[in-house]
């Protein structure tokens, strides 16, 4: 996709983001202000970039998984496993490098397991990943023995709360991961093959696409992204909280992908759009916190905003509106009230 094509693709998401930011600013006027404290940038926008990191990272992998017509419910649990592994390693006195490698390895392994269930055993993605979603948290707790495994390794903490060139490390993490994965899938044929498998698995196989390897790869990338997210949240609170790390984040990641306009039925995808989607969700979350409503309103506000966003982005909305208009007009003309008709195909 060339520059303008890309821009056109993500325009709805950018507009939505702008709208959400504007809305939050109404409730919390200083929302958009960014300042410099010492050598790091501070302010709500920076918080959004930072706090949105786990969901953004998960959304990268999730986008690819969803593009193959799959879904990965286990990413939250994988975050917990990887965070726990890294904290365990640091706790054992191993070096940070070993800890990070261990976490990434664990993420890859989890992805391999999911991919194996989906691609080789042919289990449906929701159920296949549900298994790890349930068991994974147990595995993470097994590693931490149910405690919050704390550590004081400054390097590890830096992953979660440090800053480079003024920007928090987590923000760098998802931006870089997004660029790397985005380049890899678009500069190679990976993206095309993923989309093709997502649209029509059978036909792709008959055209010689090695769907098994492709699915394995995609779930492994998702596992890897979850591992990064796990490292970040663990580093951030200097402890591995096996029970709560990444809890229900898979849902936010899926939402981000959906807001990013990638069909849950597989096919065409855009990582950039998903990342903007993640930022939209995080802006809502941060906005709710800043606006100071009582917590019992959180869920309702989020639900309504998300629904609104998705409705506005729905391509059908135009049709329905047109249909309603046409109905009124034709009703005026003929007194009949025809129903709107949809085009075949999706």
């Amino acid at each position, binding site marked *: 996709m060339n520059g303008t094509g890309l821009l056109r693709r993500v325009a709805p998401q950018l507009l939505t983001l702008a709208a959400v930011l504007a809305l939050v600013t109404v409730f919390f006027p200083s929302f958009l202000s960014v300042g410099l404290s010492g050598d790091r940038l501070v302010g709500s926008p920076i918080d959004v970039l930072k706090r949105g990191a786990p969901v953004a990272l998960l959304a990268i992998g999730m986008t690819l998984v969803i593009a193959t017509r799959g879904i990965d419910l286990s990413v939250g649990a994988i975050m917990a496993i990887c965070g726990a592994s890294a904290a365990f390693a640091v706790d054992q006195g191993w070096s940070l490098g070993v800890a990070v490698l261990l976490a990434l390895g664990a993420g890859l392994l989890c992805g391999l397991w999911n991919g194996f269930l989906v691609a080789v055993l042919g289990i449906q993605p929701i159920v296949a990943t549900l298994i790890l979603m349930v068991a994974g948290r147990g595995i993470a707790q097994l590693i931490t023995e149910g405690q919050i495994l704390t550590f004081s390794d400054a390097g590890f903490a830096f992953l979660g709360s440090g800053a480079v060139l003024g920007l928090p490390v987590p923000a760098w993490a998802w931006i870089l991961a997004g660029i790397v994965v985005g380049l890899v899938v678009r500069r190679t044929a990976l993206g*095309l093959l993923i*989309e093709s498998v997502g*649209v029509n698995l059978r*036909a*792709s196989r008959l*055209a010689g696409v*090695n769907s098994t390897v492709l699915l394995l790869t995609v779930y492994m990338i998702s596992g890897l992204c979850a591992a990064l997210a796990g490292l970040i949240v663990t580093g951030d609170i200097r402890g591995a909280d096996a029970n709560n790390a990444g809890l229900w984040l898979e849902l936010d990641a899926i939402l981000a992908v959906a807001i990013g306009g990638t069909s849950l039925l597989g096919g065409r995808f855009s990582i950039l759009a998903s990342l903007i989607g993640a930022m939209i969700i995080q802006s809502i979350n941060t906005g709710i916190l800043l606006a100071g409503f009582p917590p019992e309103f959180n869920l309702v506000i989020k639900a309504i905003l998300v629904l609104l966003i998705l409705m506005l982005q729905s391509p059908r909305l135009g049709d329905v509106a047109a249909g309603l208009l046409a109905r009124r007009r034709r009703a005026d003309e003929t007194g009949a009230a025809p129903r709107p008709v949809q085009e075949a195909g999706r």
Partner: protein
Amino acid sequence: MLLHARGLTKRFPGTVALDNVEFGLAAGEVHALLGENGAGKSTLIKCLTGAYRRDGGEILLDGRAVDPQSTAHAQELGIGTVYQEVNLLPNLTVAENLTLGRQPRRLGLVSRRAMRSLAREMLDGYGLSIDVDRDLGAYSVAVQQIIAIARAVHLSGKVLILDEPTASLDAREVALLFDVVRGLRERGLGIVFVSHFLDQVFAISDRITVLRNGRHVATTEAASLDRVRLINLMLGRELAEETSHNHGRREAGAELLRAEGLGRRGRITPFDLTIRSGEVIGMAGLLGSGRTETAEVLFGATAPDSGTVRDAKGPLDLSTPARAIAAGFGFAPEDRKTDGIIGDLTVRENIALALQAHRGWARPIPRAEQRRMADEYIRRLDIRTPGAEKPVGLLSGGNQQKVILARWLAMNPRFLILDEPTRGIDVGAHAEVLRLINEMVSSGMSLLVISSELEELVAVSDRVIVVRDRRHVAELAGQAITTEAIVNAIAAPEAKQEARA
């Protein structure tokens, strides 16, 4: 006029599919609707039956303006339709598919017994002996096609529309279908018939309407037209030469492949097959005789459980399509909707897909190269599309078929299997495809062509293999390849023919 469409217009982004089209159907007539691939036949039918919302024009049924809002609405109005792509549900039983929406009920609950007997009744007269309680998906495309016809016939109180119903049927089924259609005509129904088989068109239709590029070109009595004039009307130009018989034109080359005892239990009885380079092998048989299975086993789409395939260098691994492709095989499947096209991807991507998959993900085909390939095949195969970046799912049926052919031509395999390659392709393109087949073969490619159209087989094949009951039963070669010989071989179970030139 039973059904009358005036000034029908339908636009898609980048295309005007119907431009002010006029179409009239009288009661008690069979009205053929003809035109090249992409001329707008299917679109016209979809507008008539509420599947598409038209952009302009009006529709009169029995002189009253109607406005079908959905296919269900059209059904209520007494219009039964078989759409071009088989539109049945593979996960429902045959009986459920046939009766969907009007299952017989008792006390508000569907009565299975009544449904079953209704379904059997509906299938009466089509020569099918199938279990109506099995899932539809268990049956071949051809069987499904017949079931779709039976359903539409049952639904059609006034009008029956058939969009390429005979594309995958063989002569026997076509004859049966025509009997049914004549019966309906007697009863005063109006029947719209779309086909690219001109012989069939002349055999059944009373009047003919020709569309070209979304415009109405002519409506005439069938009797007043001959084949050549009809083709000229459709194409808007002369067609040089339709088909050419090729017997004795080629010298078979060296042996390319040899399959021995290849088979899979429950699918196809083990068979032997040798293929020479530069040779076209035709494969004939009735529905469900095992032709597609033969192709699938050869291509690794279903893994064989016995036998080997070897070439001059040694045994080949054909356990998956990817491996078969690596061994230089190609396979254009029969069911293009589920096995062929990747609907949401563009024409360019669909054409490049097999080659790209073969090269591996790490070596992308440069975009410019893909464009060049796509443009070349769009030109060579005359694929009607606004451009290479159109999603292939939005192309007309025949043009989708051409895209799949292009995908495999771009691979340049040494052995290509074509399962019903001309299904749904118009006369002009048909000639083009046959010419291409000849061209490929003269450049040394070997082909296995599966077709229900015996003339086509006779025209292209060097040898014809006849399949019956999942078993290869006869082989014809050279001058012995005639339609009669093939028909005899298919029909005569006892007399095993081993005719060789």
